[in-house]
C-alpha cells in the first residue's frame, strides 16, 4: 500500500501499525496526507491516527467486492438568468474576518 515506509522510524517511537497488517498506514503517510490537507498534527496524534486509519481502511477494503454498477443519473445543470441581485455588502462580507485593511481581507504572508 505504501512506497514511503522507509522513513517511518525517523519519526521516533511509533507504535503505529507500520509493521503488521497489510492495510496498515505508517506515520509518514499520515504526515503526508496531513500536509496535503493543511492540518498540522502533534506527534502523538500522528501515531494514534496511523493505528486508527489502518483499521478503518481495512474495513473500507470490502468495497472491492462491489460490482461495477451503471450510474444512470440524469443530472442536469440548473441555470438562472445572469442578472444582478442583492448580495452581502462589503461590510457584511468582512465582518467575520480576523484582519481586514481598506475593505480587503488580510491573509498570512505568502512566503
Amino acid at each position, binding site marked *: 500500500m505504501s512506497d514511503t515506509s522507509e522513513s517511518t522510524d525517523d519519526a521516533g517511537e511509533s507504535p503505529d501499525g507500520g509493521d503488521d497488517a497489510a492495510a496498515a498506514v505508517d506515520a509518514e*503517510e*499520515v504526515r503526508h*496526507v*496531513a*500536509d*496535503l*490537507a*493543511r*492540518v*498540522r*498534527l*502533534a506527534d502523538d*496524534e500522528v501515531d494514534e*491516527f496511523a493505528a*486508527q*486509519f489502518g*483499521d*478503518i*481502511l481495512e*474495513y*473500507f477494503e*470490502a*468495497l*472491492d*467486492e*462491489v*460490482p*461495477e*454498477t*451503471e*450510474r*444512470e*443519473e440524469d443530472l442536469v445543470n*440548473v441555470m*438562472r438568468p445572469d442578472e444582478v441581485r442583492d448580495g*452581502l455588502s462589503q461590510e*457584511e*462580507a468582512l*465582518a*467575520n*474576518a*480576523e*484582519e481586514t485593511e481598506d475593505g480587503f*481581507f*488580510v*491573509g*498570512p*504572508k*505568502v*512566503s
Partner: protein
Amino acid sequence: MAADINAFVTEERIEGDADADGPLADATVAVKDNISTEGVRTTCGSEMLADYVPPYSATVVDRLTDAGATVVGKTNMDEFGMGTTTETSAFGPTRNPVDTDRVPGGSSGGSAAAVAAGEADVALGSDTGGSVRCPAAFCGVVGIKPTYGLVSRYGLIAYANSLEQIGPIAGTVEEAAAALDVIAGDDPHDGTTRDLREVEGADPDASYAAAADGDVAGLTIGVPTELFEGADERVVETVEAAIDDLEAQGAETTQISLPSVEHAVQAYYVIAMAEASSNLARFDGVRYGNRAESDGNWNESFAETREEGFGAEVKRRILLGTYALSAGYHDKYYEKAQDARAWVRQDFEEAFDDVDVIASPTMPVLPFELGESLDDPLRMYLADANTTPVNLANLPAISVPAGEADGLPVGLQLVGPKFGEETIVRAASAVEER
C-alpha cells in the same frame, strides 16, 4: 434542565411573525448550530467557528419565523456533524434526557434532546448519514430525513453536500410533519431543490401533517433481513413488536432482501469524508473563523489554524477524505464507493416495485453510555449501518418511537420511495396509535 443536558450552544431568541397563523404559530423551535441564523452565532460545534456570526439566515429559518415559530436557541451537535453521539462538540457533550449517563445520539443530539426535554416544541437537525434519525431514536422522539432536494440547504454549513438534508424533530409525527410542510419547497438559492410540480408522481399540494391519519389498511411493508442482522436483540424484539402491530391494523408485511446495504457504511464514509475534505478546505482563518497566532507563511499559518480549530474526529475525516481522493487511491476507494451508491439506489428502487415502505430498526443498538465509543471511531461508524443507505439512495425516512427496551427508547425507521413523505408519515402515525 437545559443546563444539565447541555442541549444548547447558544440560547438567543429570533421572534416569529406575530401575525402568522397555522400549526407553527407561537411554536418554539430549536435550530441545530450548523444552520445559519442572522446575527446569532453559528458554531457547528467547533472551536473554529466559536465566534462566527452569519450575516444571513438559512432559508429554513426564514420559513419557520415567517410561519410564526420563534427560535429559542442553537443546539449542540457533533463538530461539523461528524459523529453519532454529540460528544465531539467543542462545547462539551449533550446528555440524553431519558438517561443522563447516556448519549442523545448524533449528530443532531442537541436538537433531539431539546425536544425530548420540553425545551422546544420542534427542532431542526441535519441528516447526512442518520444525524436526524439517530438522535430521534435515542431520545424517544420523531425525526424526518426528507428526500434529497425537498428542503433547501441554503445556509446549512456544508459537510457532505450530496448526502445531506435538513429535517424536523418533534414529539409527535404530526408535529414533525407540520414543520416539514413549512420548510419544504424549492428555493432559488439552492439549485438542488426540486419544484414538486415538475417531479413525476409527486403532489405539489401535499400536506404532510394531514397524512398523519394512522390509516395503514392495505399498506405493504417490506422487512429487509440485512437491516435486522447484527442488531441488538432487545432492539429487534421491540421493532418487530411494532411491525406486528401495524399488521394488526391492516398492513401487510413481506420479507425483502437488499444485498447492497452490506456495503453502505463503507461507501457512505468514503463519500462523506471525500466531500468533507473539500468542503472544510474553506476554513483557513482568513475570511471567517478563528486564526492561529502564527509567524509562518501562508501554508504554515493555515495548517496551524486548522490544527487549533478542528477536533480529532474532524481531522480524521478530512485526512481520510484527502487520502481517498489522492492519486493512486481515488479509483480504489472513491470510484468503488460511487458504484456502491448506485447499487444501493437500484436495490431500493427494485424493492419499491413491490412494497410501499421499508421498516427496520433506526439504530441497531441502544443509546451508548457517555464516553463508550469515543476512542473507537470505527465502532461509532458501524452504528450507522441502517441509516446511511437512505442517504446514499436520496430517499425519505422517518424514525418513530417503537417502544422501550431496558427503559431506553428504541426507534423504528420507515423508508419511502423518492418524494413519498406522505406514505412514511402515514405509516409512522399508525405506530404512535398503538
